[in-house]
């Protein structure tokens, strides 16, 4: 019993001590808890006012504290103390998934004693999503065990949504970047690729890795790299944007053309970069190149055709001119009636042929823009009447009447190109007559309008001929097109006439219209604006009866390779009583001039061995001044304004176009025998004659020299003497170079004289000598130089006389 009691007591003691131990342990835990809770308790107000979720846990993950911000409901805040996470999440409706993550991170924090951080996505019972950033801070006590764990949470919903949106946008952009067919790249300001889209990779046949980090110019053909480095990169740096076409070589060496538009993107705090957006336009470029090439080929072909036609016409014209020339000579011989008729037919046919080849040449001139227009005053009614007159005979032959109804005042004088008016009118009238078998042709002329000093003249040519069908009417102005393809077979012609008319009228500022009814007739209406001229028209020179024998016996050299022309010109000249020698080429002509003496040379421009221009230059360089100064008249088949300057520049005195017209040739020869610029200038002759006009002016001004002399009269005299001694020699040299047309030296001599004249203060020549220097140097206005140099001669001679009288005589 006693023993039993002892056992019970012992057990009780044991139990008591165990209980006491437990109680002490509990006590300790409680105190510890209190220690932790106490600050929480003390600072609960502070914690509750922090705008963040704050929770305090025991190391066993039981809630010890939850602030206002973390849990709005006060009841829950009370309840939660001592509860587990799982419980709280269930009760507060956050769901099991949230709890599981919280438990996971908590265990991590306990295990590692390291802070943990994660984002939590919670959908509340109203369905609203909130995001929180949660952070666990394990609080260790000194012995290394855990006291508690603090959890801080922030609401990052707004930021999170923004981020999500950004992410979404970025995703869209990425998809755009990846799936877009346009070539997109990003590169830095040095041209290094930072990223490229798949389309770019496909286009360039490289993988993304092969492209990024490399410089764009590494993929360019070598000759284009500098352009990229020195043009594109500076441009984009400066202007922030650049566009253009880039050529790139693909991995397989294919050349790619990219049309790009790139812009710099500035990002704060980071290197700016460039977004490039390009399109592969390789096919377009090749198509363009192909088109350009085709265009060039077509143009060349067309140009070759035009040139061929022009050359052909030119070639044809030479023999026709031969035929006409010989016919002319033949007509001067005694002929019987039949022969005269035949000859007339030959002449008519040749004339027609000439018209055709002239038409082709005119068309070529119009197309190539070489057609030149004159500006002459003329009486318009006279001009029109003369043109109509020339058709009356042909019209009468066909039995067609020509009626001229004019309302323009007969004495109206206008300024314009009378030849082009004739050409147009002739063309239209000859068509009218050609295509009219019976009936009449009415020509009506009137003034359509006046405006200040311009007037528009209108001319209507109405015929009763075959007309033009409606569907062809638009085509008749096209070159080489006739109203009906059968027309050329029946009526002949080149189909150029109306095209020329239309083009000429357009050049003149006028217009050409046509109305036509097939088989009833056509009406052509053209108008031309003219400037009204006050005063008289430049009347055609009254026909002068030329006395072809007036020049007497002259020796003329004809340099011409065409036998026909040789023959014609030789006969003409011989009929004037000239002695004629013939040279077949330039070299022969040069030799003959050196060996014989002639009064004049007729020089064909185009000759074998040495052409006329070269020959002329060589003649002008001959040492013998008389031979070098011989008058030379160019004979040429092509005269345009530019050509004539070439002839004069080469040293020719005049030029005539072939076919050679007897009267014109005679006049040209006559003029050049008399002309001052062909004869060597004899200074003495000029000077004795011209002293009078300058008699009363003082021509010099010695103030420069006097200023330099500092009052030394002897010095002044010495200078004047020097001038008188040296200048005449200079002048003579100048004159000699003028005679030989050595323009280069003329310019140099004028330059030399310039400073001398300036120092003597000869102001009346100040400008002239400069003009001579400049004109001779540039080969411009050479025709004015003889007169200017003549003036220089005269003034200097007079000046010398004055100096002798006024300065040197003062002894």
């Amino acid at each position: 019993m006693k023993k039993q009691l002892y056992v019970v007591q012992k057990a009780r003691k044991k139990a008591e001590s165990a209980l006491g131990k437990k109680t002490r342990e509990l006590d300790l835990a409680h105190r510890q808890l209190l220690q932790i809770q106490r600050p929480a308790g003390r600072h609960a107000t502070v914690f509750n006012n922090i705008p963040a979720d704050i929770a305090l846990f025991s190391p066993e993950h039981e809630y010890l504290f939850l602030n206002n911000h973390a849990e709005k409901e006060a009841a829950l805040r009370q309840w939660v103390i001592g509860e587990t996470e799982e419980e709280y999440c269930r009760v507060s409706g956050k769901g099991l998934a949230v709890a599981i993550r919280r438990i996971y991170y908590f265990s991590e924090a306990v295990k590692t004693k390291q802070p943990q951080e994660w984002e939590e996505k919670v959908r509340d019972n109203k369905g609203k999503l909130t995001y929180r950033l949660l952070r666990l801070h394990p609080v260790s006590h000194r012995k290394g065990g855990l006291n508690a764990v603090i959890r801080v949470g922030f609401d990052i919903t707004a930021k999170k949504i923004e981020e999500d949106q950004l992410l979404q946008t970025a995703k869209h952009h990425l998809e755009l970047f990846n799936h877009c067919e346009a070539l997109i790249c990003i590169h830095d300001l040095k041209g290094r690729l930072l990223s490229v889209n798949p389309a770019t990779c496909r286009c360039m046949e490289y993988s993304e890795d092969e492209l990024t980090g490399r410089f764009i110019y590494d993929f360019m053909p070598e000759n284009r790299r500098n352009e990229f480095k020195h043009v594109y990169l500076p441009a984009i740096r400066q202007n922030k944007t650049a566009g253009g076409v880039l050529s790139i070589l693909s991995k397989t060496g294919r050349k790619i053309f990219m049309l790009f538009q790139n812009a710099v993107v500035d990002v704060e705090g980071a290197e700016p970069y460039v977004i490039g957006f390009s399109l592969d336009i390789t096919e377009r470029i090749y198509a363009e190149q192909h088109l350009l090439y085709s265009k060039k080929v077509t143009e060349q072909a067309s140009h070759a055709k035009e040139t061929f036609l022009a050359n052909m016409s030119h070639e044809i014209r030479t023999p026709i001119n031969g035929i006409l020339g010989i016919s002319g000579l033949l007509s001067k011989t005694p002929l019987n009636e039949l022969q005269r008729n035949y000859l007339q037919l030959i002449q008519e046919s040749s004339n027609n042929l000439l018209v055709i080849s002239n038409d082709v040449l005119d068309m070529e001139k119009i197309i190539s823009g070489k057609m030149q227009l004159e500006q002459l005053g003329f009486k318009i009614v006279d001009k029109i009447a003369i043109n109509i007159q020339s058709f009356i005979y042909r019209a009468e032959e066909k039995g067609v009447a020509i009626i001229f109804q004019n309302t323009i005042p007969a004495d109206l004088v206008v300024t314009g190109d009378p030849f082009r008016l004739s050409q147009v009118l002739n063309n239209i009238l000859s068509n009218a007559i050609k295509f009219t078998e019976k009936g009449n042709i009415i020509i009506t002329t009137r003034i359509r309008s006046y405006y200040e000093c311009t007037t528009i003249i209108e001319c209507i040519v109405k015929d009763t001929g075959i007309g033009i069908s409606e569907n062809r009417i638009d085509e008749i102005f096209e070159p080489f097109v006739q109203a009906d393809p059968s027309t050329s077979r029946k009526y002949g012609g080149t189909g150029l006439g109306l095209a020329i008319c239309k083009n000429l009228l357009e050049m003149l500022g006028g217009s050409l219209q046509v109305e036509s009814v097939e088989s009833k007739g056509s009406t052509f209406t053209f108008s031309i604006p003219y400037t009204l001229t006050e005063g008289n028209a430049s009347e055609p020179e009254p026909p002068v009866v030329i006395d072809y024998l007036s020049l007497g016996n002259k020796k003329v050299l004809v340099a011409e390779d065409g036998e026909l022309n040789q023959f014609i010109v030789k006969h003409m000249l011989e009929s004037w009583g000239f002695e004629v020698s013939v040279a077949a080429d330039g070299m022969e002509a040069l030799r003959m001039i050196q060996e014989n003496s002639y009064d004049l040379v007729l020089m064909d421009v185009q000759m074998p061995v040495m052409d006329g221009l070269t020959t002329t230059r060589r003649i002008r360089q001959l040492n013998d001044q008389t031979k070098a100064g011989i008058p030379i008249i160019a004979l040429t088949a092509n005269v345009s304004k530019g050509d004539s300057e070439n002839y004069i520049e080469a040293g020719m005195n005049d030029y005539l176009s072939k076919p050679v017209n007897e009267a014109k040739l005679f006049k040209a020869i006559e003029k050049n025998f008399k002309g001052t610029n062909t004869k060597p200038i004899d200074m003495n002759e000029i000077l004795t004659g011209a002293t009078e006009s300058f008699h009363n002016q003082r021509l010099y001004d010695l103030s420069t020299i006097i200023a330099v002399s500092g009052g030394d009269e002897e010095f002044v005299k010495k200078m004047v003497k020097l001038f008188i001694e040296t200048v005449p020699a200079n002048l003579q040299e100048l004159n000699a170079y003028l005679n030989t047309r050595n323009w280069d030296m003329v310019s140099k001599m004028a330059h030399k004289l310039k400073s001398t004249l300036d120092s003597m203060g000869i102001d009346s020549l100040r400008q002239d000598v400069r003009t001579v220097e400049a004109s001779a140097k540039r080969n411009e206005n050479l025709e004015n130089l003889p007169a200017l140099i003549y003036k220089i001669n005269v003034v200097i001679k007079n000046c010398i006389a004055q100096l002798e009288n006024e300065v040197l005589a003062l002894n």
Partner: protein
Amino acid sequence: MKQNVNPRIYVVEDNLIYQQLIEKELESISDFIRFFTNGEACLKMVTADLPDVLVLDYNLEGEMTGLDTLKASRSVNPDVYAVVFSTQPCLDTHNNLVAFGQFDFIEKTDDSFYRLREIISSRY
């Protein structure tokens, strides 16, 4: 530049009247003036006997211009002081100065001789 009261002056000018005018202007500065009408002749003398001052017309008889003569003379005496005359204005372009070396430029006008004397006497 060495100080020299009586500088040796070479003048290249193909116009005799100008030669006289220049001589008249410069006689107060120096009694050592040599005249040449072309660059080649002047250059020959430069090689034999160095001048202090070169007065050059731009346009000269012979093949060399004034500037060519200057350039050739400088290869003999890089320090020679030069004045270039010309009727054409503005020969003293940057390019010319680089190509032919430093020189003073006087445009030929009424007062160019006076200016020539001024410009040379300011240095001597």
